């Protein structure tokens, strides 16, 4: 064992995990893929120029104190360290500066966060089509905005937030095209009373809408039949709304249909996952302390289920307390007592979730796209080809992968996995949970052979592999 606890990912969940663990005296190491801590939500928060932090707003600037606390905490943080394998015995293999190394601890907390739900529509592989979150990342990490006309399409709080931020940053918004089916509003209504328990979040959402409307950004709702037009790059987004066909010119089309847990690492570790019908995504099965079905492996934050940055921060505290108790460093009574504020705050953060999940539930044609739509971007496999695999007798995503190469490219199924599971479920008339997901294998990210040759353990002894 090299440490008491290994934490993967330095977003809000990972940072609060590491800080809590360190405060309990656990020898903790935090591995993060990026050059600076903060995750995607607080990306670059300590170094972004004032103009950028100003327009990204107080929710972004909030992260600064957290990252600074981490910097002062004395936690062993390894930046730009890519975790590419984790064994069932929890030994972690990562690569930093072209060298791979291994770490081992009795407790491992993955705070690997969320990714945007892929939005497979015709033309979504064209240059210029990006996730809405990508535009925000460009703003956070480089103060850059799209230089030509922009259209935002999809649904969810992030879509509106990014639209507001781009507007403020001087981008040209040609329109917002909401795809949430109109029936969503009725299905969201019963969850509204609970959502009123998170009034600040609701007011923020209303604020976004007011701002965009008063700026006169064309706004379409209940849009269907979205398609990005262009040959070599995006030129326009066409769609139907209000019974009419529309086309908005755009050199950058930003798509967004909510965020989902990034399950690549938990799939690699073969823990149990459940299909969540409300959030329409896979979730690793965890208890209140983030403990998965593999002893010692915990998940903190959006990697377990989507709750947002403030919820992730609290779940990190709970996972760290759980880990400290599991290795005998905290009594049950102490763990429970220390957990109370985090449990209360977490509950508060989650009030609005069922409302948002229902209101922004993606339309069926995003989850199971039409036949000619590309679902696997890497191997260029269409939804129709996946359906053909089902007709030929493929019973699940792995067979489908072997016969069609769907999910076999460099992204290792990150972009098509959930779509393929949902298409197959529908074709085979089975629940998604029964259809399952791609089996994920190491390396999680491509690593050069030379980095393996340099594989040392943390004591710098030659390792037999």
């Amino acid at each position, binding site marked *: 064992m090299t440490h008491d606890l290994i934490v993967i990912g330095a977003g809000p969940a990972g940072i609060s995990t590491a800080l809590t663990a360190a405060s309990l005296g656990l020898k903790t190491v935090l591995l993060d*893929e990026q050059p600076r801590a903060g995750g995607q939500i607080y990306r670059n928060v300590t170094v972004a120029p004032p103009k950028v932090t100003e327009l990204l707003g107080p929710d972004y600037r909030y992260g600064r104190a957290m990252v600074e606390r981490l910097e002062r905490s004395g936690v062993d943080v390894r930046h730009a360290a890519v975790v590419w394998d984790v064994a069932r015995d929890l030994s972690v293999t990562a690569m930093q500066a072209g060298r791979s190394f291994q770490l081992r601890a009795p407790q491992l907390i993955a705070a690997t966060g969320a990714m945007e739900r892929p939005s497979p529509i015709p033309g979504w592989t064209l240059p210029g089509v990006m*996730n809405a*979150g*990508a535009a925000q990342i460009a703003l956070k990490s480089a103060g*850059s905005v*799209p230089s030509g006309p922009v259209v935002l399409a999809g649904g969810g709080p992030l879509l509106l937030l990014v639209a507001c931020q781009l507007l403020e940053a*001087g981008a040209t918004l040609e329109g917002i095209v909401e795809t949430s089916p109109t029936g969503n509003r009725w299905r969201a209504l019963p969850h509204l009373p609970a959502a009123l328990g998170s009034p600040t979040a609701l007011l923020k959402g209303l604020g976004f809408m007011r701002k965009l409307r008063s700026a006169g950004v064309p706004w379409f709702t209940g849009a269907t039949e979205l398609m990005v037009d262009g040959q070599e790059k995006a030129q326009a987004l066409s769609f139907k709304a209000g019974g009419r066909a529309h086309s908005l010119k755009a050199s950058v089309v930003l798509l967004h249909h909510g965020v989902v847990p990034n399950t690549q690492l938990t799939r690699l570790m073969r823990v149990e996952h459940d299909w969540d019908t409300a959030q329409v995504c896979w979730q690793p099965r965890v208890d209140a302390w983030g403990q998965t079905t593999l002893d010692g492996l915990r998940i903190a934050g959006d990697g377990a289920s989507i709750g947002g940055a403030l919820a992730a921060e609290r779940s990190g505290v709970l996972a760290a307390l759980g880990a400290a108790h599991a290795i005998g460093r905290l009594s049950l009574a102490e763990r429970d007592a220390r957990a109370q504020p985090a449990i209360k705050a977490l509950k508060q953060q989650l009030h609005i979730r069922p409302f948002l999940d229902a209101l922004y539930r993606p339309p069926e044609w995003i989850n199971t796209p039409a036949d000619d739509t590309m679902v696997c971007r890497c*191997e*260029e496999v269409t939804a129709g080809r996946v359906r053909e695999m089902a007709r030929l007798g493929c019973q699940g995503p792995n067979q489908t992968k072997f016969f069609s190469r769907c999910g076999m490219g*460099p992204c290792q199924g990150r972009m098509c996995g959930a779509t393929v599971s949902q298409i197959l479920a529908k074709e085979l008339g089975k629940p998604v949970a029964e259809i399952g997901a791609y089996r994920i294998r190491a390396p999680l990210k491509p690593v050069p052979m030379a980095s393996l040759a340099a594989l040392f353990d943390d004591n710098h002894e030659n390792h037999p592999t």
Partner: protein
Amino acid sequence: MFRPIEPTGEKRTVALQVEGKSIVARAGDTLAIALLNAGVTPFRQTPVSGRPRAPLCLMGVCFDCLVEVDGQQNVQSCMLEVQEGMQVQLQHGARHMEGDV
């Protein structure tokens, strides 16, 4: 495809070579955003059909920003910060296997 919202000002710049042409980026930018700011598009052509691609996610999950950096192929340009003198080649089709394997 992208542009910085404020002038480079006192921010340190670095020069890199893309397909033999010099571009200037700001220190701390990821390579993917530096390429987008410089108007480089597409980043690559796919191995399957040769269709053009550029980044989708900018956060390391889509693998559509793969480029060759200093001789190393299939590098996620969104996960790498620019360095002075970086030699970048765009990828046309599958990675090649010449010389070393």
